[in-house]
């Protein structure tokens, strides 16, 4: 699997994603400039990463301006053809703004930026320790959409504690139903607030991020 990492003006996790994938996980990574359009070097077996950061300064609404960049038009096309796309943090926000994923990421319930280690888990998986760093990470969607997401197994991660107990006490931003990440109906577009690319190295004493890529079938 080959990886493309989109660089928007204001992206600041693009290099981290590149380093994690190329150096820590030995993958081929191609950096993609937001003004370009060409995704010809990728097949739908490959994965495009929308990295974290503050694309366009996060002004107006997070992800709102990046969504209209030329490269995003190609990414939307790529996703609609079944290509794999992972949006992390700001990338998740861009995916929601562009309509590739349902819902929206609102300002954290406590109205403060928060950077911390959190634990997340899939329905039946083990708790994974992954860092978060965001001011707008409170996932929200209407109840009928949430019901649908849960019924289709589209909620990929929920916030939990070190033992795997899911609950609002371990939810860092007030996300509805403790949702940390979701995927689309077809299962090829993924968005999550925590940063797996910040947890792929023994020197940082945390390699749980690699497991995230495994779980999502992106390794």
């Amino acid at each position, binding site marked *: 699997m080959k990886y493309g990492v989109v660089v928007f*003006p*204001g992206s*600041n*996790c693009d290099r*981290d994603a590149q*380093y*994690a994938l190329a150096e820590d996980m030995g993958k081929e990574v191609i950096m993609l*400039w937001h*003004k370009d359009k060409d995704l010809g070097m990728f097949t739908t077996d490959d994965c495009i990463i929308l990295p*974290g*950061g*503050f694309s*366009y*300064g*996060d*002004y107006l609404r997070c992800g709102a301006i990046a969504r209209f960049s030329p490269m995003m038009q190609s990414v939307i096309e790529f996703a609609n053809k079944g290509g794999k796309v992972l949006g992390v943090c700001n990338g998740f926000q861009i995916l929601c703004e562009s309509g590739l994923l349902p819902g929206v990421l609102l300002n954290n319930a406590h109205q*403060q*930026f*928060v*950077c*911390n*280690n959190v634990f997340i888990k899939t329905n039946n998986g083990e708790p994974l320790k992954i*860092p978060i*760093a965001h*001011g707008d990470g409170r996932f929200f969607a209407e109840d009928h959409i949430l019901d649908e997401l849960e019924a289709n197994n589209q909620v990929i991660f929920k916030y939990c504690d070190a033992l795997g107990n899911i609950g609002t006490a371990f939810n860092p931003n007030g996300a509805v139903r403790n949702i940390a990440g979701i995927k689309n109906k077809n299962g090829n577009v993924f968005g999550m607030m925590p*940063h797996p*690319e*910040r*947890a*792929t*190295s023994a*020197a*940082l*004493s*945390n390699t749980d991020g690699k497991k995230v890529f495994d779980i999502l079938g992106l390794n």
Partner: protein
Amino acid sequence: MEITAKTAQELRLTAEEFELIKQKLGRTPNFTELCAFSGMWSEHCSYKNSIRWLKTLPRSGGRMLVEAGEENAGLMDIGNGFGVVFKIESHNHPSAIEPFQGAATGVGGIQRDIFTMGARPIASLNSLRFGNIKDKKTQRLLSGVVKGIGHYGNCFGVPTVGGEVYFEEGYHTNPLVNAMSVGIVQAGKTVSATAEGIGNPVFFVGSATGKDGIGGASFASANITAESTEELPAVQVGDPFQEKKLLEACLEVIETGAVVGMQDMGAAGIICSTAEMSAKGKSGMHIDLDKVPTRQKNMKAWELLLSESQERMLIVVEKGKEAAVLKVFEKWDLPCSEIGHVTGDGLLKFYMHGELEAEIPAYELVLGGGAPQYTREYAAPDYLDNIAAFSQDSIEDIADTAALKAVAEQVIQIPNIASKKWITVQYDSTVGAANASTNAPSDAAIVLAKGTGKALAVTTDCNSRYVYANPHKGAMIAVAEAARNIVCSGGEPIGVTNCLNFGNPYNPGVYYQFVQAVNGMGEACRKFNTPVTGGNVSFYNQNPEGAVYPTPTIGMVGILDDFGTRTTLDYKETGDVILLIGEQQNDIASSEYLHKIKGVEFSPAPHFELDEEFAVQKFVTSIIKEQLIKSAHDISEGGLIVTLIEKGFHRGLGFDVAADAGIRLDAYWLGEAQSRVVVTATKEQAEAIKHKGASNHIPVTVLGTVTSGGVTVNGEGWGAISEWKDKYDNAIGNLLKASAGEIIEMGADMEPMELN
């Protein structure tokens, strides 16, 4: 308008300085020229009241690649063909006026100093001082400053990995906001702040220029009207998004090989960068001010010269290579205009509408050139008598271990000691995926310098109450503690950047503090072989009620050639032996206990001997290299008991210790004598450490053992470490919550202050 000594005074130049300017120019300057001198001969740009003393600091040697003051920031060799660039700077006065934007632009300014040299910033730190945390005004400032630092740093994408926050009454009106940045540059890719090559074009890059930060000069302008004052923004607004683009574009433009010199525009804006770059390159510049992109209409020449609008760079480009440069800035959607060229006559000539607005020899404007240098009068301030008069015999000792427990519970909740988590979670500390301390805490933050094969240990330190008590010794302690933090983390201290925050230098008592502190700092830096690579002086942190505690903040960088020497601070395993390296002292002077719990304002600095400190640090380094310890944490604010408790938090392990020295109970557990480190080791390692200590004449004392979570002192159960952690973690949040019921008014409760 007629230019007189009175005009000069309104521009904060003395009558003598005005005469000096006339002498240097051979004529009376016009208003624009006088503004240029006013900006360049300000304290901030000229260091006129400090430079004589700063020159006594060790400013070269070791791994230094450029001498202090030569470039925008210090540059030191870390091996493998890489250098580390670092600097600390204050943004105290702007933060007092508008805490959010003041702190934000402080963070932005220091990052530009790093990447203007061609380095990519990889770590930020900040050193903050506020008044009493229970005070409404302090809470407003704290909240604004923390949000501002987060806003800029988080968006810019450099992790905030460390720093310090202190709350003392003396900072009520004058908070301190010092920001430090550390970057990495490949050898041969560094860029100098110089203008060379006659005819080379000068480019202006980044944000458009507005009338930002020129208030002082404006009021001296005869043309100012009531209407025009309203146009003057009192604050500068930072745009981290613009700066992030500027960073990437500047690093990319260096790769083109077309850049001759580059400097960011900070204090005194265009006049400062054109003057400093020209003076350094022994050249001059011809600048068309009409070509500077502006945000406001009808800006005057002097406004353009002095404006401190953020996120701007001046770049001298090799003639013929302009296209490559323009292409990069176009890619990043950054405005880039050619505004002039380099000349050979040493003169700065500024034109507007075809007319020569100002003509000044660049050399005469700059520090090291024509800028004046003063030594102010100094005399020991009276309060030092009160300090000398203190005797700890007047303080009753803590009665027994039970009473000690109650005091320890109070001490770990003192805001200066308690967890700063409420603050630090608002900073992105993990972007860059290089902060090795996130999951493995140590005394200094450990940051991987990716691609270099090295890691850095970085820290900021200054206990200003020690400096207040004894400026010379206090400044030495600040250096020693920074070095100790790096040593305890397994690093080798290599260099210092300093931020000297003091009151009014025209006050002899304040200047005494300054002189003594610089002397002490120099002595300690020479001992630790950590030259001072640069930094910043902030005077006038003073209000009618007095000056802030003298606060010479030390930012120190250390290197880990081998990541294997990285040492963390936390207890590792039940049963490990807890040892104290260094000597217990019968001393409670200047401790948090004495000051905050006992309410004693005046007491001497704690015990400190430079040679003793150096020997202890050398010993700790050697036992780390020989892999004899499993953790190391130095003793600082709150004394031994706080160190022991803090070591338990990360893994939820406790300790069982007992005292056996014949000294006061409070001094043993809460005293802040320097040069002490608590380490843990296996039983075998502990024997080896004791043996090694005896042969090196370093006191080594076995204090007890690590437990699975219980805390026992002198045989008495003190509960579980988790209970202590709760108190420590939540103290600051609880204090803020307790008074959050009332609305914190914005802009209210503003007090006038002297501006720097």
